[in-house]
């Protein structure tokens, strides 16, 4: 070491120098064991990395700074969560329809954060370069944070509303939750480079703004202080993750020209798969927020068409093109939310949240937001269903829908140019026929059929009799296969799903808050106090 080191005053380190000294030199070239035996998973995908040190760290976080800033975020967040719980904040939301969206959140999204944590954890072990490994470690820890804070926040709702109390169990079993589950399992079971392109870039960089910014702002608008707090606090981590996503892409593209077609293929695949997953948000935004901030098609324009446009313009210099199936997403933006809500309404007895038909006020909003599609295709359908409800013969769909072999959505989507024709695609593999919902999903299936034939398609499994609890006798005279399948999934038949009006959630809401369970339709029960006359309310007996 330099002997003069202690005679000169200590050098002042910049952020970049400090980070480099504390990070870059930590690794070493192994000599007792072979590198390929230590890092076993980085070659089978065909990606070529010549120099891991070329990795640029966008955020130069050392562990002490990570603890400091993340600790501060957590202190702020838990102060709000504590206050929320102490003051029964769950009753401050607009009405209990909003809570139905939170059911999708805890049952369908929280476990994705967890799987993401584990996926990045694999990268945190397997990437040979110190820089990307540390980035993956911090992201893995952040994703654990997101799962944790969602559970801690929503647990308060789970105590007072139905259908949220079995989220890990439901995630593994409920038929429509295989949409998110298969998405993340697809990514984690891929190789590490496909995983990071899929999640860091295609999902987080290109798509999650769309989900979390308008949705969380909507949560705030509907009085959910706790959800908006964890949502925006999580997004502050996501801003780091998104930056990791774009750095990953640039790194892969700059390392070897042979990586370009692989990266393009993964962008095309995961953009489509991520888009299909996030379409659920279309329904949550347009139908499940009693008070709305922005419609799905507007969010898609701002966060994909505009920002995605800027991003892909920036990547054009590497020879990267916008995702192959982006035009379909633009063509569908006026339809997806309405088509999904229609399907959920139809099968409402087989889902773990309650549904309703949009009120006149809500339909007027949709006519305004979707001038080209709503009045033409969807208003007549809802008005017809309303007339059936009024006549006491509500529309119900008793059979579970055909699922797409790749995205696992019901095949509910329509042809791009023709919203009256269902989009159905077929592929043959080893003498069998497999169904997909779109060209985007068929592309994915046809590229790797050997992977997707293994998909655990819940509706198939139910009809094959694989979804009953132990002790259930399918030969018993009173055997009801749908009822038993729901029990297997952890859904309480007749309680968790069905019509919102008359549900336990709607009735409890009015009893507990004295406010209407649907702000657009007036009170369902006489538990709702006449707010103009408090004396009247206090005179009424509470249950």
């Amino acid at each position, binding site marked *: 070491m330099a002997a003069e080191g202690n005679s000169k005053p200590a050098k002042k380190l910049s*952020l970049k120098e400090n980070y480099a000294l504390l990070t870059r030199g930590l690794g070493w070239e192994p000599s007792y064991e072979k590198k390929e035996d230590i890092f076993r998973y980085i070659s089978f995908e065909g990606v070529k990395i010549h120099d891991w040190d070329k990795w640029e760290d966008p955020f130069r976080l050392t562990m002490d700074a990570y603890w400091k800033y993340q600790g501060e975020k957590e202190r*702020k967040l838990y102060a709000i969560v504590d206050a929320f719980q102490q003051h029964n904040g769950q009753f401050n939301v607009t009405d209990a329809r909003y809570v139905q969206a939170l059911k999708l959140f805890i049952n369908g999204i929280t476990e994705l954060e967890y799987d993401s944590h584990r996926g990045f954890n694999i990268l945190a072990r397997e990437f040979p370069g110190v820089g990307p490994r540390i980035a993956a470690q911090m992201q893995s820890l952040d994703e654990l944070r997101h799962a944790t804070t969602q559970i801690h926040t929503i647990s308060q709702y789970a105590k007072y509303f139905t259908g949220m109390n079995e989220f890990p169990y439901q995630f593994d079993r409920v038929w429509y939750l295989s949409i998110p589950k298969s998405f993340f399992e697809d990514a984690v079971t891929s190789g590490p480079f496909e995983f990071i392109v899929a999640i860091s870039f295609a999902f987080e960089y290109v798509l999650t703004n769309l989900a979390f910014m308008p949705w969380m702002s909507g949560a705030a608008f509907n009085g959910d202080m706790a959800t908006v707090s964890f949502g*925006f606090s999580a997004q502050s981590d996501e801003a780091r993750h998104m930056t990791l996503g774009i750095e990953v892409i640039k790194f892969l593209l700059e390392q070897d020209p042979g990586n370009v077609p692989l990266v393009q293929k993964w962008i095309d695949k995961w953009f489509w798969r991520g888009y299909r997953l996030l379409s659920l948000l279309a329904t949550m935004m347009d139908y499940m927020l009693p008070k709305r901030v922005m419609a799905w098609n507007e969010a898609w324009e701002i966060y994909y068409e505009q920002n995605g446009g800027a991003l892909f313009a920036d990547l054009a210099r590497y020879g990267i093109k916008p995702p192959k199936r982006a035009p379909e997403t633009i063509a569908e933006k006026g339809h997806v939310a309405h088509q999904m809500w229609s399907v959920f309404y139809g099968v409402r007895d087989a889902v773990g949240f309650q549904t309703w038909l949009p009120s006149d006020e809500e339909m007027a909003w949709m006519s305004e937001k979707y001038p080209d599609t709503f009045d033409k295709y969807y208003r007549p359908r809802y008005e017809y269903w309303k007339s059936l409800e009024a006549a006491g013969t509500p529309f119900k769909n008793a059979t579970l829908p055909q699922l797409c072999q790749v995205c696992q959505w019901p095949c509910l989507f329509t042809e791009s140019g023709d919203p009256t024709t269902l989009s159905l695609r077929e592929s043959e593999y080893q003498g069998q026929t497999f169904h997909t919902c779109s060209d985007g999903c068929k592309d994915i299936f046809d590229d790797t059929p050997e992977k997707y034939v293994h998909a655990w398609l819940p509706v198939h499994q139910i009809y094959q009799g694989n979804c009953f609890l132990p002790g259930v006798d399918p030969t018993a005279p009173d055997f009801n296969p749908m009822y038993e399948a729901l029990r297997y999934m952890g859904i309480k038949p007749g309680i968790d799903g069905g019509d919102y009006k008359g549900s336990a959630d709607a009735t409890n809401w009015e009893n507990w808050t004295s406010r209407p369970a649907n702000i657009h339709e007036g009170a369902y029960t006489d538990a709702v106090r006449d707010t103009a006359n408090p004396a009247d309310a206090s005179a009424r007996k509470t249950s």
Partner: protein
Amino acid sequence: MATTSTQPVFIALQANNDTMPIIEAIRQDNPNAVVHDYPAMVKIDCPGRLVIRRETVEEHLGREFDLREIQVNMISIAGNVDESEDEFVLEWRSA
């Protein structure tokens, strides 16, 4: 360091007391920035490049400011990031 790109970059911040001086600093240093208010969130768009300067934030805040503190209240960003002690820059390089 100029960019010729006019593609929009953005930063979204939580709308709270901590971010007011940051937003003021952004307005001051980025004349082309457009500030949009949403429930609980402020989204600031800017063509090509957006810079947050530590010194400007400090002027508005009245104390020393470490640019990494932005992370506590940042909701999202678009654009390539370059962060130093003095500046936090978002930009697109291609037109």
